[in-house]
């Protein structure tokens, strides 16, 4: 499938994604605008917002997916970030956790550092890369309706699904609080793995 030409909006699709989560699904969001727009869609206890470690949203999400195979887990990652760690797509293709979904927000720029072009702006096709890495259930998203339909059917193929979305260059309007311990503790409360006892009440 060829890359779509229509540009969608990350904040809008993040809201559509969150609206679909009815089973306490875990969402791991990569650095910068990716997690700001997830935060902007309304905080949920099962959200993990990355502050550094660029490129590790998918590996972290896979770790959650392996530890909790009955929970749906979604990784949100930017094009610059996934380009930094394309190898993880091969690992995910090989391990094939059926409860893992990956969404790549592809604006073709390193948005936060001054809009320098990424390889996806010209040559690299993330869906082709993901398919080649072994994630057969990988798709370019055409429009908002297509995104919602694909999300609804993400478990149909019995393996991980990857969606890549061409998005505009609108930055996230709000920023996630930068407190890594707080983010981790709240996430573990959301996953039911916190050791906080009465402190969590």
């Amino acid at each position, binding site marked *: 499938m060829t890359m779509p030409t229509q540009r969608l909006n990350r904040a809008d699709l993040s809201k559509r994604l969150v609206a679909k989560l009815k089973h306490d699904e875990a969402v791991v969001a990569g650095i910068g605008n990716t997690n700001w727009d997830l935060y902007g869609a309304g905080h949920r206890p099962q959200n993990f917002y990355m502050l550094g*470690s660029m490129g590790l949203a998918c*590996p972290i999400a896979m*770790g*959650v997916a*392996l530890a909790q195979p009955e*929970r749906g887990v979604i990784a949100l990652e930017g094009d610059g970030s996934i380009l930094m760690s394309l*190898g*993880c797509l091969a*690992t995910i293709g090989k391990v094939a956790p059926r409860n893992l979904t990956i969404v790549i927000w592809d604006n073709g720029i390193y948005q936060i550092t001054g809009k320098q072009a990424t390889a996806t702006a010209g040559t690299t096709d993330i869906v082709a890369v993901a398919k080649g890495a072994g994630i057969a259930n990988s798709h370019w998203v055409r429009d908002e309706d297509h995104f919602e339909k694909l999300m609804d059917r993400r478990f149909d193929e019995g393996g991980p699904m990857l969606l890549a979305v061409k998005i505009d260059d609108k930055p996230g309007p709000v920023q996630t609080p930068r407190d890594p311990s707080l983010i981790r503790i709240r996430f573990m409360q959301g996953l*039911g793995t916190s050791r906080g006892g009465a402190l969590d009440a």
Partner: protein
Amino acid sequence: MAWSDTLLKALKDNDVRLVTYVPDNVLTPLLNGVTSDNTFRSVCTTREDEAIGVVAGAWMGGMKSVVMMQTSGFALIANALASLTVPSQIPTVMVISERGTMGEFNVGQHLVARTMRPVLESLGIAHHTLTDEATLPFIVDRSIKQAFMTQASVAFILSPLLTGGNPAGNAKLK
């Protein structure tokens, strides 16, 4: 018992169920033990920082894990440790086979190995160099328990004194 069996027993006794790794010659007996034992889920990743990400997610999801790598792989993970696991207080247990010392033949290994302990020190990560089977169970068992209870990472460095070094490299030494 071989050193690798002694180490695997300590991991099992501490409820470690997931091993992520990038392979190394010295680690081979450990990795063979992991992949042939259904107690463990094992994931061979493409890079060591990816392996750190997977165990960080697994720990937050309630599964205890370790990462295995060689010294040169450790040189790839400073950012994952400094910007993810250490500030988030995610305990990461690392088993690192030590190259670059006591008979290294490869110049590409000997210098990168010297970056390992200073990086661990600068991040405040406890590290123990395992040199013999007699003290290994005590060090590993106690330090894993400490790591998970205090939510602080720990590195176990497998010295050639314990492992005999890289078998392929030993044959090259003149």
